[in-house]
């Protein structure tokens, strides 16, 4: 029963969700919307489970004085501090002049922006490795990348201004993006679409059951 009941629920809900796409009637839309609302409600409840896990993990690190445990102390402290601040008044999470929102705008946002900005350096280092022309395919990748990069900036056309229109580097870049690149992207999209359909079918039919917490 522990396995059969979830499988039956998944079959009914999965089949309904697949069929409701073809039924424009209001009843179908209402049930669909209610199902989405339930997903959100369940998600909110599980947040408590998540916070429990977080506290448990860091409490364990602090109590056992594991490596770099002071960071765990900062995490727990920040969690408690922001929760108390947010619950201190009904306007706390909306008032832009309040301490809660100031912590958000002047501490969290800059920290997030710093992490995001690291991406530029990581792109440079990854591109350096990817563009090393060790094989024929890697050389093709390098050549395409040079054409596309030059073709997207004004200096590219300035360098090839002497060439007839339609054969300049920006035209080549556009061709690469519009044809080989789009063809490859669409191939992946079609594969993903079929993969999603096949996986959904496996779950609805109960062929795939690992989400239940077991292989069989």
């Amino acid at each position: 029963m522990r396995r059969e009941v979830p499988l039956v629920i998944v079959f009914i809900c999965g089949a309904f969700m697949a069929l409701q796409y073809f039924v424009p009637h209001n009843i179908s839309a209402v049930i669909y919307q209610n199902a989405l609302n339930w997903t959100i409600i369940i998600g909110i409840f599980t947040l408590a489970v998540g916070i429990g896990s977080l506290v448990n993990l860091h409490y364990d690190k602090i109590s056992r004085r594991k490596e770099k445990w002071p960071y765990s102390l900062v995490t727990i402290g920040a969690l408690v501090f922001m929760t108390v601040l947010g619950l201190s008044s009904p306007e706390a999470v909306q008032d832009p002049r309040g301490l809660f929102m100031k912590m958000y705008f002047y501490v969290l946002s800059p920290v997030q922006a710093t992490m995001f900005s690291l991406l530029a350096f990581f792109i440079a280092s990854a591109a350096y490795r990817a563009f090393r022309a060790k094989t024929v395919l890697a050389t093709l990748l390098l050549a395409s990348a040079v054409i596309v990069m030059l073709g997207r900036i004004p200096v590219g056309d300035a360098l090839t201004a002497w060439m007839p229109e339609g054969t300049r580097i920006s035209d080549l870049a556009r061709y690469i993006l519009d044809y080989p690149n789009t063809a490859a992207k669409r191939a992946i999209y079609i594969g993903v679409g079929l993969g999603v359909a096949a996986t959904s079918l496996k779950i609805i039919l109960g062929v795939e059951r690992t989400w239940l917490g077991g292989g069989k």
Partner: protein
Amino acid sequence: MIQPGKKIPMFAIVTLLSVLSAYIAQAQPPHSHMTFVDPDSVFVFKYSSLAPQPGPPENLAAADSPNDAGGAISISWSKAPGDNTIFNSVDGYLLYRSASLDDGFSFLTRLPAGSTGYSDSDPDLKNGENFYYQVAALYGRDTLYAETAGPAVPGAQLFHTKRILVLLFMALFSGTALYLINLAKRGGTLYVRPIPGIDAVDDAIGRATEMGRPILFVPGLGEASRVATIAAFTILARVAKKVAEYQTRIIVPNYDPVVMTICQEVVKEAYSSAGRPDDYDPKDVYFVTQDQFPYTASVNGTMLREKPATNFYMGMFYAESLVLAETGFVSGSVQIAGTDQLIQIPFFVAACDYTLMGEELYAASAYLSQEPQQLGTLKAQDWGKIMAITLMLIGSIVYLFDSGAGEALKNWVIGG
């Protein structure tokens, strides 16, 4: 994925389709379907003696809007005389509505010249009630009314007629999958081409065991309802079972609490099925945060502190993909990634040792399990691809011979 004995010349098909697409696009003169009128180069005969006599719009019709939940009526009419780019006689159209022919019509909206239809979805429209419409053409100060149309009765439909092709494709795909699952159950042999990223899983876990380092499994930033995340669960189950058998440690930091709960169950069950339930540590499958970059920072910190021998990135990833993969590269881990997020695939290809691209992520669970039922659905995916390629070839050929027929076919396929 699966080759029925002989290798399919995929490169040839892709090349053929690319050449056909390029030829079709270049055969069309730019903006061939549009007519440009330069206002400085044509005469405008507004109210001139050559203009047709003003008259009301004709062929007014009102009917329930198709394929909706009701509460909408589509109204259409033919343009009034002189409503064109040459004469520009008409200033606009006025639309009126009434619930009864005996009551007066109330003004609904004003539409610009050139309009030939309107979809009325006013909240006052109740399903099952009668509504009448009247349209008038504006010629300066003159208003010429058309005949009344109606009654039109808004109503909900039970089937979306423009999605019939999707339904047919879905039925065909599901039927093929069921047939192949049954075939596989009866002992039919199904060949699956090797996927290097999945073949490397066992070696990667073995490497972690030899080095005495843990394995890091990142299930992405997707919610549990996303199919890519569900595919990540299935891969996690196989990886965790191997990890339990090899008596290695697996760390699973989570972005979503629902995903965390499922991952805990999956890993716990994997340890049990490997006969080592006591080795499972629930603290190794934990929740971090639901903020993208704080989550990334935490996972990066784990990589640099724990120095995992192997990193798995499976599921949905966004801008953090390269930050994670580059940090993993710096910490010297073997990295296997799998995502259906098209934009992130190049980043993983550049930074990881193996990448499961798009459908390979979904194929992984079937490939790892080698269960006949799972392989049956994998084979169905191949048949789906054959159907898609056939449709594309038919569309390209029709387009080459008759662009009008090609457009009609495209609109039918996309339900336009």
